[in-house]
């Protein structure tokens, strides 16, 4: 009798438990596609402690982080911070703080504390009724002599035609002292990502190609209000230029007008690009950045197909393999017959290394790297 009661109670309990357990079990089987990326400082597993030289600066969810010796540090709160770059002496970070209606350039110290605000792009209070009186500043870069701030700035604009142009302004001055440097094409998004190089700047210009598609092209200019010289063709559809530490190579992202991106490098002689070499073609790559010591290229790409962007590292050996030594037979030895055919050593394929796994880095924000 007792056992029947016990059995009945056990069955009733089982019935009560099975439903919720099944419900909860199914909940654990979701794909996790919608899970929010982890903060770099909290992500597990931690970033691989690769021997990345120096300190890398990177943006996620409106905050700037530094990565040094395999550890991330959050430098700013999540408040619209993006697009870090470095002052020539490496002691300051130049970054953008993006608000809903405008963005400004700031100087931060290397610990993320605001030192000063460089631009003032919010509309004056009396003109707040019209969003068009606000301005965007993006992609700030300081010249090698530390005197000039280059940036993409949405002035002039004409009604609905809002385009970014390349501007140069005194780093310690105001936008009013700045100079319009490029003439952006109307209704294209404009000119972005200025990169100071010897004798001028390289930048990305968006414009309509011969097939009426909007393409990105790298241009070089050394004169104000001159587009300069196109470095890539419309069909290559390139953007995100990054110059190697020795100034002889450029890494960029080219899409060839497809929903794909290829990490491409080319030699740079100060006025033209050499033959292109695609070094990554199977990922949606963004923001390639050369290591200060030339040991490789860091870039952003999804960790899983269609996922948020992670930090990746491509060692130099992957795109500039050292010549494989070939054993050379020594003539004049005891062997008098024909020399044996030299045998090449097996080629070692160097693959990119995924540094982070569950972050969500801002893929339109260039990386900054201090040696």
């Amino acid at each position: 009798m007792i056992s029947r009661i016990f059995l009945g109670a056990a069955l009733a309990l089982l019935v009560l438990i099975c439903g919720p357990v099944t419900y909860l079990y199914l909940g654990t089987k979701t794909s996790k596609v919608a899970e929010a990326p982890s903060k770099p400082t909290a992500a597990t597993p931690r970033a691989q402690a690769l021997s990345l030289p120096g300190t890398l600066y990177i943006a996620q969810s409106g905050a700037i982080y530094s990565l040094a010796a395999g550890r991330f540090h959050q430098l700013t709160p999540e408040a619209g911070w993006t697009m870090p770059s470095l002052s020539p002496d490496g002691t300051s970070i130049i970054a953008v703080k993006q608000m809903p209606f405008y963005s400004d350039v700031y100087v931060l110290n290397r610990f993320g504390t605001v030192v000063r605000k460089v631009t003032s792009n919010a509309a004056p209070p009396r003109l707040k009724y019209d969003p068009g009186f606000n301005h965007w500043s993006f992609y700030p870069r300081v010249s090698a002599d530390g005197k000039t701030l280059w940036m993409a700035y949405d002035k002039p604009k004409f009604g609905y035609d809002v385009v970014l142009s390349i501007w140069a302004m005194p780093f310690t001055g105001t936008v009013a002292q700045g100079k319009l440097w490029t003439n952006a094409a109307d209704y294209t998004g404009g000119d972005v990502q200025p990169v100071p190089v010897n004798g001028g700047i390289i930048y990305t210009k968006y414009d309509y190609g011969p097939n009426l598609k909007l393409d990105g092209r790298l241009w070089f200019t050394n004169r104000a209000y001159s587009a300069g010289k196109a470095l890539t063709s419309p069909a290559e559809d390139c953007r995100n230029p990054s110059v190697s530490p020795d100034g002889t190579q450029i890494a960029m992202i080219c899409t060839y007008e497809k929903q794909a991106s290829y990490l491409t490098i080319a030699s740079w002689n100060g006025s033209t690009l050499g033959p292109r070499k695609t070094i990554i073609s199977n990922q949606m790559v963004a923001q390639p950045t050369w290591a200060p010591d030339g040991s490789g290229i860091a870039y952003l790409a999804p960790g899983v197909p269609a996922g948020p962007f992670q930090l990746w590292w491509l060692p130099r050996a992957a795109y500039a393999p050292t010549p494989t030594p070939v054993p050379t037979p020594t003539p004049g030895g005891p062997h008098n017959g024909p020399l044996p055919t030299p045998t090449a050593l097996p080629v070692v394929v160097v693959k990119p290394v995924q540094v982070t796994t569950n972050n969500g880095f801002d893929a339109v924000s260039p990386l900054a790297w201090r040696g």
Partner: protein
Amino acid sequence: MLSSVAGGLAYFLPAAQLALDSTGQVIRVPTPSPTDLFTSPLPQSPSASPVTGAFTVLLLGSDDDSKFIGDHVLTQSMILVRIVPSTKQVTMLSIPRDLYVHLSTGGFGKIDGAYSYGGPGAAMATVSQDFDVHIDHYIWVGLLGLIKLIDAIGGIDVVTSHPVLDDYYPADVYGGWPYDYERVAVLGGPQHLDGIHAMQYVRSRHGDLQSDFGRSQRQQQVLMAIRQKANQVSPEDLPALSKAIGGELKTSIGLSQVAALLPLAASFDNPDQIRQIVLLPPYTHGGGPGGSINPDWGLILPLVHTYFP
């Protein structure tokens, strides 16, 4: 066993609810008004697709904020999609929202008004009669639904073609006053977009020289990115997805057909098999009444007959 089944049913209940509410919508084609001045070419009722298994769906996307009353919304996005399962080929034809056509409800006007006059049935009938194409089904998604759908699948990866900057983008999704404006800057290049930024990318047209045509290309691009991301979704995600897009999705496709189509969608993984068509000039040209776009049916219809036989 019964308890486990009940637990499973409870888990999938939101998805089932949405599926029942949203799918299998009856298409009602409004009767044209007696003042009908139909002059569009080839109004004969089109025949069904001759290729076995091929079918055509009209995708409709609408602003459905408080500017609009009830179901009387405009369709900002109209994309005709033909799917051939046997060859895994997809053709997408974007129809300009401002195209000046004969409306199935009578009279002439911009094609984006067809839905507001007579719901999805009128939109389907208008496209069907003017483009001389057989349409099997429609899928309608509201603005907020698309944002929530993209967020529910964890965002999408897109190579945005160029910076999309707009000083007068409608702040009608989360703002208090639907006639407000906000500034938008979706920068160019490969990136991961959440729902709100994906919506800004596909909806803004002020900064595009090609206006609605450029926007149509971006819409097709985002559709393909959603399809790609959908491959990562598991059946257990359906309740969360249903919760996200509840009330923002309607389709005439029946529940059993949806179940049959899901595995099919995952098999379309070759981008070269997806053809994208936008009716740029000379297929259309500006200068129509009230800022509309005039179609050149002499060019459009042969194109449609080729890709939507």
